[in-house]
């Protein structure tokens, strides 16, 4: 690119920067969708309805917070949906032996952690590219679920296991929504206020420079894979509890939606930048869109077209806008 780089005389004021930010744009989109939906259906604004609407994205969004860290650090985990399937299968198998809810949660989270550790080990110890590794483990984890279950199904979860996917913690706040908001808050604090968060961003910008600055790159990445596995395990607990049954095809294709959420949230797919706030707003945008479509009886596969277009659009539009902007300013 032969564009001359000039330094502006003064930077935008902080309020102007806030106004121009990706998060502000997303928030605007969310408000518009909110408005359209409440016009389209008179029941949309009912608080219980809105609370219901959160169930279809909180599980994915919880993973998206962890995935955001991973993508900011320049890695990716495409095996998250397969981890959900394997963890759910493990919980189902244990539930058949009459185990209690605590054991099931322990098993679900444990399988998630183990899968995350396996991914992390392959990527950091053996220096393998995470895209291919997690395509492989995606096949492996879900394959193990198929080997265990075949075309069968696990049912018969204990009654109080339904708490995680169906109950409310306080007034309109379901357990799922509360956990997601909690994870997002903690994630946001870690990413934006701690040295660990700075290290994650540094690794995404340049792993080599980060290493020379004393960042233990491999260890940080390993922790991020662990966290993503754990988040997938938690999502598995909630999803299994919500559905009350396990099939090996559970959460099929969710990895795409989680990655879309993260990228839509303004996290650079090349690593190095992004905010948790953006991811949270993106989660709400996607949740509201799919829920709105659901109210209008749009089939799921048409929603997936929309999500695919959104994924491409949110990356292409800023590039297009920048190019048009550059052309206009050159002419002036």
């Amino acid at each position, binding site marked *: 690119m032969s564009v001359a780089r000039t330094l502006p005389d003064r930077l935008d004021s902080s309020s102007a920067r806030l106004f121009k930010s990706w998060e502000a744009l997303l928030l605007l989109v969310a408000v518009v969708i909110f408005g359209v939906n409440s016009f389209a259906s008179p029941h949309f604004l009912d608080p219980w309805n809105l609370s219901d609407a959160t169930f279809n994205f909180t599980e994915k969004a919880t993973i998206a917070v962890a995935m955001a860290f991973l993508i900011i650090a320049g890695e990716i985990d495409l095996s998250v949906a397969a981890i959900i399937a394997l963890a759910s299968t493990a919980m189902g198998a244990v539930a058949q032996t009459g185990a209690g809810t605590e054991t099931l949660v322990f098993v679900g989270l444990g399988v998630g952690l183990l899968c995350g550790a396996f991914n992390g080990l392959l990527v950091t110890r053996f220096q393998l590219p995470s895209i291919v590794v997690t395509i492989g*483990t995606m096949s492996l984890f879900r394959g193990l679920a198929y*080997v265990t279950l*075949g075309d069968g199904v696990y049912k018969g979860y204990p009654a109080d296991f339904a708490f995680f996917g169906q109950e409310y913690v306080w007034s309109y706040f379901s357990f799922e929504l509360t956990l997601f908001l909690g994870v997002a808050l903690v994630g946001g604090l870690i990413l934006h206020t701690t040295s660990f968060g700075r290290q994650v961003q540094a690794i995404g910008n340049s792993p080599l420079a980060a290493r020379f600055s004393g960042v233990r790159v491999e260890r940080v990445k390993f922790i991020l894979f662990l966290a993503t596995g754990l988040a997938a395990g938690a999502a598995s607990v909630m999803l299994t509890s919500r559905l009350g049954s396990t099939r090996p095809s559970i959460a099929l294709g969710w990895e795409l939606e989680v990655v879309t959420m993260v990228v839509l949230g303004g996290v650079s797919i090349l690593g190095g930048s992004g905010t948790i706030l953006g991811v949270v707003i993106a989660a709400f945008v996607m949740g509201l869109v799919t829920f709105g479509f659901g109210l209008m009886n749009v089939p799921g*596969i048409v929603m997936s077209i929309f999500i695919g277009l959104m994924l491409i659009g949110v990356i*292409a539009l800023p590039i297009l806008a920048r190019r048009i902007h550059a052309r206009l300013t050159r002419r002036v």
Partner: protein
Amino acid sequence: MKNLLARREGLLVIALLVLLVVIASRFPDFLAPRNLAGVFNDTSILIILALGQTAVILTRSIDLSVAANLALTGMAVAMLNAAFPGLPVPLLILASLAIGLGLGAINGLLVWKFGIPPIVATLGTMTVYRGSSFLLSGGKWVNAHQMSPGFLEWPRAVIAGLPVLSWIALLVIGLAFLLFTRTPLGRAFYAVGGNPTAAVYTGIDGGRTRFMAFCLSGTIAGMAGYLWVSRYAVAYVDIAAGFELDVVAACVIGGISIGGGIGSVAGAVLGALFLGTIKNALPVVQISPFWQMAISGTIIICAVALNARAEKAKGRLILRSAT
């Protein structure tokens, strides 16, 4: 360098032979020429898709939309055939190539003109193409009785002992070999993936080369769409769901480096044959087909680990000769 590549393909040949011997030790009939030809025919579509994917991966990209492209093109061609049974089959094949090319070009443009990372662009188009197949068909199936006899019989016709489907695979292998090793475009694939900066200095347009790779992969996926629909005599929205992973797996097993610039036609073909043999052998040795997914996952991980080791060795060699 040449030795290293030769060795990796050699390793694959040995692995394939060992696999065959193990299967044959319990089921000697598996090695009957008739059965082996059947395995090859069954793997043909995977082989040609893997060759298209190879071009893309060589340029440091990835095309996850091939299976969705296959499904959309297959559906479009099947519906054309059902609506106008009079259309000659060659015309339908041309249509499948054109539709596939168009869908591949969209991927290519997104990567070239908008600078969208290939994995994101094709993840997006993957869902869009698959969804469009639903919009096109309204979720309905096109069944065998709606397709014309010519449409169904063409890939099955036997010429010199092999079905046309197998001959198409052999033809694509030959053309891919010529393209990758004997043409400027083929060398450009390697150059752009091997060292993008150096490629620019030698006058190669990286974006355009990637665009061409996506067009190639798309065209091949389109053709595979016709072949798939006609071979299985049915078209519906979910055909070949998840097949893109098998295609990428075949490439990775074949030693095509996901980092770009390394790989060969022989590798891709052997990788696809390795997967195809396992898939065909599982029912023969009476292992539940549900194992297939876990096995291919394990093989992908092992293959990636092997590739990484080979590439690391190459890196050291360069350093040593430089000092």
